[in-house]
């Protein structure tokens, strides 16, 4: 926990202490005049930038516990601020504490509105801080700080008990408030302060009400009688505010740092509805970790110890100061965040650079291996006359294979076609075109001829062409008639004549042939015996 200055302000003056290393140090009593303000100013000058935590203990305070609808977020803020403006319009020091759900069958939640009704009490101290540019961390009313005592000394009901209340509410059961069953859950905490007797009322561990009873009329011979009277008056006040039901027992806890209140418990008998217990000096010292000397030296030491660890809520700091606080916290957080970012970035950069170095080494290794492989290949090629000569030979061979893919023997093909026609005397071949193969397709043939002696019987002529095509197919060709002796397409006009010698006229036809997967070695054209031994072969019918 960082070092901080603690200022406890009351009508009688103030107590200033320093909190360092988790311990309270140097408690100084400051009068509420120029001397006290001067001491505070000097202290702030010597501790620049140290946050100041302020506790206020005065009669001029306001507490009002109300049950309001359960809302959250912006709605809650608007609702509570509107109510605060109605209740505490005369002071900038106010705050609302959202508390536990209502127990008496009402739907809603307890809200404790509280404030300091005499801002002039704080004014000079705050002015000194502003002049010194000190950072005011927060202002708390003493009862808010006292809530910490309930936890430290196990004065509040256990959480489980409180959860039972919530469960009862959810199940629609009426809580047994006001009976002896919740004995001890209504607590009046009594402390002796500089300004008088502080009486703070907690309902199930939640602060509901507090008052500071000045003790000007205290009789020196029987001070406890005055205390007992103030406690009774407080009970009456609680009854009047309906914070306590009549006949309901009230647990009273007396904080006794000087071991002087032992006789007070006899004045608060059980048959009068009191359940009294005392937190003696030793227990307080042990519970708060206070040095005995400090507690003896200053009656405000206990409050200052509580102020060193204030609760999250209940801060009376005005909104402007809160905003300044937030900005300050943001400024304080940004630099560590930036430093953290730099460290992370440097770490990431280092990791990346290390990985880059690893990759570079791997690349070097691979390059060396590649060079080795190239050298090995070079040695192998040297034995073959050198890499360039080998490559040239290889390329020449590849080119020769390419050429061989275009080789075929047209003469043999032409002779074979001619032989087929020779078997069909009624068909005469007039023209034949042979196209050589290439890398994409086999050899192709187109042939034209005439059908003779069909006497105008075109059916006969077509049958002969069909017979020719069948003969060619048997020879391994895909044969397609591209021109029939008579084109009988329906969209064409056709004509002819018959009789005399007209019926002996020949009719022209055409066929397209493609080699149908029959692969034969090409002829010996353009090859030598050496080359034939190594060629891939041609595709030719």
């Amino acid at each position, binding site marked *: 926990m960082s070092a901080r200055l603690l200022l406890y302000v009351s009508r009688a003056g103030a107590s200033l202490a320093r909190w360092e290393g988790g311990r309270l140090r140097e408690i100084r009593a400051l009068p509420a005049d120029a001397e006290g303000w001067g001491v505070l100013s000097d202290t702030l000058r010597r501790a620049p930038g140290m946050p100041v935590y302020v506790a206020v203990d005065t009669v001029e305070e306001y507490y009002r516990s109300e049950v309001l609808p359960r809302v959250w977020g912006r709605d809650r803020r608007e609702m509570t601020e509107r109510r605060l403006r109605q209740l505490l319009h005369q002071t900038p020091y106010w705050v609302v504490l959202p508390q536990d759900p209502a127990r008496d069958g009402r739907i809603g939640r307890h809200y404790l509105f509280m404030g300091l009704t005499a801002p002039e009490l704080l004014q000079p101290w705050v002015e000194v801080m502003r002049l010194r540019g000190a950072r005011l961390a927060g202002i708390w009313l003493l009862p808010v700080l006292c809530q910490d005592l309930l936890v430290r000394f196990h004065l509040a009901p256990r959480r489980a008990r409180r959860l039972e209340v919530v469960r009862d509410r959810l199940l629609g059961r009426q809580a047994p408030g006001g009976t002896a069953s919740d004995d001890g859950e209504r607590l009046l905490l009594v402390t002796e302060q500089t300004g008088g007797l502080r009486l703070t009322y907690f309902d199930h561990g939640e602060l509901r009400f507090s008052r500071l009873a000045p003790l000007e009329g205290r009789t020196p011979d029987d001070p406890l009688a005055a205390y007992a009277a103030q406690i009774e008056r407080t009970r009456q006040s609680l009854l009047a505010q309906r914070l306590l039901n009549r006949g309901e027992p009230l647990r009273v806890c007396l904080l006794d740092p000087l071991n002087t209140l032992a006789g007070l418990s006899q004045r608060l008998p059980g048959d009068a509805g009191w359940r009294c217990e005392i937190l003696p000096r030793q227990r307080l010292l042990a519970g708060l970790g206070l040095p005995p000397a400090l507690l003896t030296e200053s009656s405000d030491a206990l409050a200052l110890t509580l102020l060193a660890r204030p609760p999250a809520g209940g801060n009376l700091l005005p909104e402007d100061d809160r905003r300044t606080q937030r900005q300050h916290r943001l400024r304080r957080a940004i630099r560590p965040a930036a430093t953290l970012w730099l460290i992370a970035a440097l770490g990431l950069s280092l990791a990346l650079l290390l990985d880059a170095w690893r990759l570079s080494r791997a690349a070097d290794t691979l390059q060396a291996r590649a060079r080795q492989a*190239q050298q090995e290949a070079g040695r192998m090629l040297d034995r073959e006359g050198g890499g360039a000569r080998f490559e040239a030979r290889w390329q020449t061979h590849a080119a020769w294979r390419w050429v061989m893919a275009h080789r075929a023997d047209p003469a043999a093909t032409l002779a074979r076609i*001619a032989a087929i026609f020779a078997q069909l005397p009624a068909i005469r071949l007039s023209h034949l075109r042979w196209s050589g193969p290439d890398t994409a397709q086999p050899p192709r043939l187109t042939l034209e001829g005439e059908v003779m002696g069909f006497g105008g019987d075109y059916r006969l002529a077509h049958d002969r062409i069909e017979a020719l095509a069948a003969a060619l197919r048997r020879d391994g060709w895909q044969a397609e008639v591209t021109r029939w002796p008579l084109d009988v397409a329906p969209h064409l006009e056709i004509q002819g004549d018959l009789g005399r010698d007209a019926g002996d006229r020949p009719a022209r036809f055409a066929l397209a042939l493609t080699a149908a997967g029959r692969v034969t070695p090409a002829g010996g054209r353009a090859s030598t015996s050496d080359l034939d031994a190594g060629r891939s072969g041609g595709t030719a019918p």
Partner: protein
Amino acid sequence: MIPTAQRAAWATVVLLLLAGAAAVGVALHLHGAAAAARQQAEQAWRDAQARLERLPARIAQARPLRGQLAELDRRGFVGAARRLDWVSALARSQRALALESIAWRLEPGRPTALTGLGATRMHLDLGPMTPDGLAAFLQHLDGLGQGLFTVAQCDWTLEPLPQRMQCSLDWWNFQGSGDSP
């Protein structure tokens, strides 16, 4: 007005942020370059390794081809187009086979899809000719060893007599690396 100390604080924060970003940026750049270099080196190694693994088979495959390649070289397949030899070979075949007439025409040389391989088309009108005559002519022309050719197309006209043959030959030449194999 922002106090000087506060300005300095903000400047420090900005400086820290920029320094971190710059460090990461430079490191990322260097890492990217190293990763790319490694990838290139790995690819080069794989290529070299694959080539080395293929090489014995290629050498074994290429050894028996030496004789063929020498023959191709002798024929003039390797190097520039030898038009003079091709035409001369045509004349010799015509005389040797006592062909009645041969009209020839050479197109300009053209490149092929295979780098370094060129082709020159020669159109021939062989006059009166039969398939058997064509076979004898092509065999004789090839036997002269004055080049490497393939037959691209032949038109055989049977009517009117006499039968005629018009053929197109492709003469090939390869100008690879320029080295003789």
